[in-house]
């Protein structure tokens, strides 16, 4: 179908509609008139410029936007609408457009401005299209006033900048607080270390002179005096243990305790600890039994594993009454050695089971039957186990007994933090 026929058909269709609304127009609109209305309804300014730069055609929006009347604009060169400062070179831009005439945005990537009649500048976006007529290149410029959009963008940018500034201030605060926390932690560690030193110094002479007295080198003591000196010694050692544990815990918490792992026979290490615990067990008439059959080597910090076993075993003996049993079991489970220290002792109430791994917690509160100990043993034990990459579990019921199970990785894992690892890497 030829284009003209199509246009005619459309015209017919459109002109029929008003009849249906029973408001027939006095004069049917031509297609040109309708296009004109279309042009005038556009909020963008549309201008046609001839090869000499003169404005030949414009819409109402152009009048409003630039503040000139149609009569004033017609025949003026388009440079009139360009900011005074840039006017001089604008004809060159026109010439270069003529070399590559195609529909494209003007000054792509640049922030363009136009000038109103009253001299005010405003930001614009301009789209250029070639329009060949009678062998001459006319340019159709569609100009959009982007003042509002710019303002919104500026506002967003300002908000973003303010946000960035606030964020960086917050970051600075956070860093300062981190430094403060680090400093406080260091001071705490230093305080604990120096407190430990200051406490150990008088304890040194308390223990030393008590030992001298107990040795009776300066004269014999009667039974009562001997017992008294024994009490002094025992409590001095207890105090020393407390100081050592506080220091240990402080080292662990400040990350200063470094494991020194080595390969060793686990059964030898366990036997050493059992030997130490046997005396206390015998004096309480508690049966102590080694049911562990793990006969391989373990890669761990031997001293710390001893400490873990010793803490658990001495607790088990301590909380088991005469005639009871304490025993050690072991098994291997998915790459971990599981060591269980079990007893038939007084057990731990369910509501206390989580708390016993906390610092200074002691089973039974103020009414507890057994008062010796620092309340730090299990907290340290758990930390030592976790430093090794293992875990500690408790199963217990009151008056039936307790089972503490420690897992230790059998293979050297990357999680294993140690000085040896660092030296090797």
């Amino acid at each position, binding site marked *: 179908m030829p284009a003209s026929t199509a246009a005619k058909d459309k015209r017919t269709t459109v002109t029929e509609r008003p009849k249906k609304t029973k408001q027939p127009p006095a004069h049917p609109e031509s297609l040109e008139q309708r296009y004109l209305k279309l042009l005038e309804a556009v909020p963008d300014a549309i201008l046609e410029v001839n090869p000499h730069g003169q404005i030949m055609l414009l819409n109402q929006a152009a009048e409003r936007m630039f503040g000139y009347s149609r009569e004033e604009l017609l025949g003026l060169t388009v440079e009139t609408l360009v900011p005074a400062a840039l006017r001089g070179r604008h004809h060159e831009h026109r010439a270069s457009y003529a070399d590559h005439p195609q529909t494209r945005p003007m000054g792509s990537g640049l922030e363009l401005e136009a000038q109103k009649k009253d001299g005010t500048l405003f930001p614009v976006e301009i789209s250029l299209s070639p329009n060949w007529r009678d062998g001459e290149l006319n340019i159709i410029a569609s100009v959009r006033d982007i003042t509002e959009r710019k303002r919104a963008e500026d506002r967003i940018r300002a908000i973003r900048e303010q946000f960035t500034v606030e964020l960086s201030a917050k970051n600075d605060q956070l860093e300062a607080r981190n430094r403060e926390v680090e400093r406080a932690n260091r001071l705490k560690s230093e305080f604990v270390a120096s407190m430990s*030193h200051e406490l*150990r110094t008088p*304890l*040194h002479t*308390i223990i*030393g002179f008590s030992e*001298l007295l107990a040795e009776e080198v300066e004269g014999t003591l009667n039974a009562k005096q001997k017992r008294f000196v024994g009490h002094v010694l025992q409590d001095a050692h207890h105090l020393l243990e407390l100081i050592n544990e506080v220091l240990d815990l402080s*080292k662990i918490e400040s990350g200063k305790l470094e494991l020194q792992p080595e390969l060793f026979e686990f059964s030898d290490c366990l036997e050493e600890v059992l030997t130490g615990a046997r005396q206390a067990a015998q004096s309480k008439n508690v049966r102590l039994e080694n049911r562990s059959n793990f006969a391989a080597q373990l890669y761990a910090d031997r001293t710390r594993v001893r400490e873990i076993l010793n803490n658990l075993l001495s607790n088990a003996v301590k909380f088991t009454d005469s005639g009871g049993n304490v025993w050690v079991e072991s098994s291997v489970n998915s790459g971990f050695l599981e060591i269980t220290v079990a007893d038939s002792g007084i057990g731990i109430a369910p509501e206390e089971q989580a708390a016993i791994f906390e610092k200074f917690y002691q089973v039974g509160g103020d009414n507890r039957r057994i008062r010796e100990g620092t309340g730090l043993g299990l907290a340290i034990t758990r930390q030592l186990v976790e430093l090794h990459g293992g875990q500690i579990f408790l199963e217990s019921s009151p008056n039936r007994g307790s089972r503490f199970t420690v897992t230790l990785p059998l293979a050297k894992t990357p999680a294993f933090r140690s000085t040896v690892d660092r030296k090797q890497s």
Partner: protein
Amino acid sequence: MRRVLIVEDKDTSRELLRTVLEKQGYVVIEASDGEEALQTARAEIPDLILLDLHMPRRNGYEVLIELRKDQRFVAVPIVAVTASAMQGDREKALAAGFSGYLSKPLSLANLRSEIQRLLPEA
């Protein structure tokens, strides 16, 4: 008779060490700070020195370094005595040139065996 220099700023601690050592049959010489320790050591040339690390007027490490520079003290056993209990203290002391390390509070048994180890003939 073997002579032991005790360097220790605390009177009670000096008395304790002296009592133990005299019972063992040693002759005890005393100094109560780092400076005095250097003077006394150079004047007396003892057979063994128990040197506290934490002292006024030159700490134990400074005294050790000064003494080890002196030809007469190259072979004299010098034992560090300290109430500090930080990890690596013992290694640090032995690496610096101390012959032994005793931490406070020390057990009398440890003290005696350490001296026995370093002065076997006595």
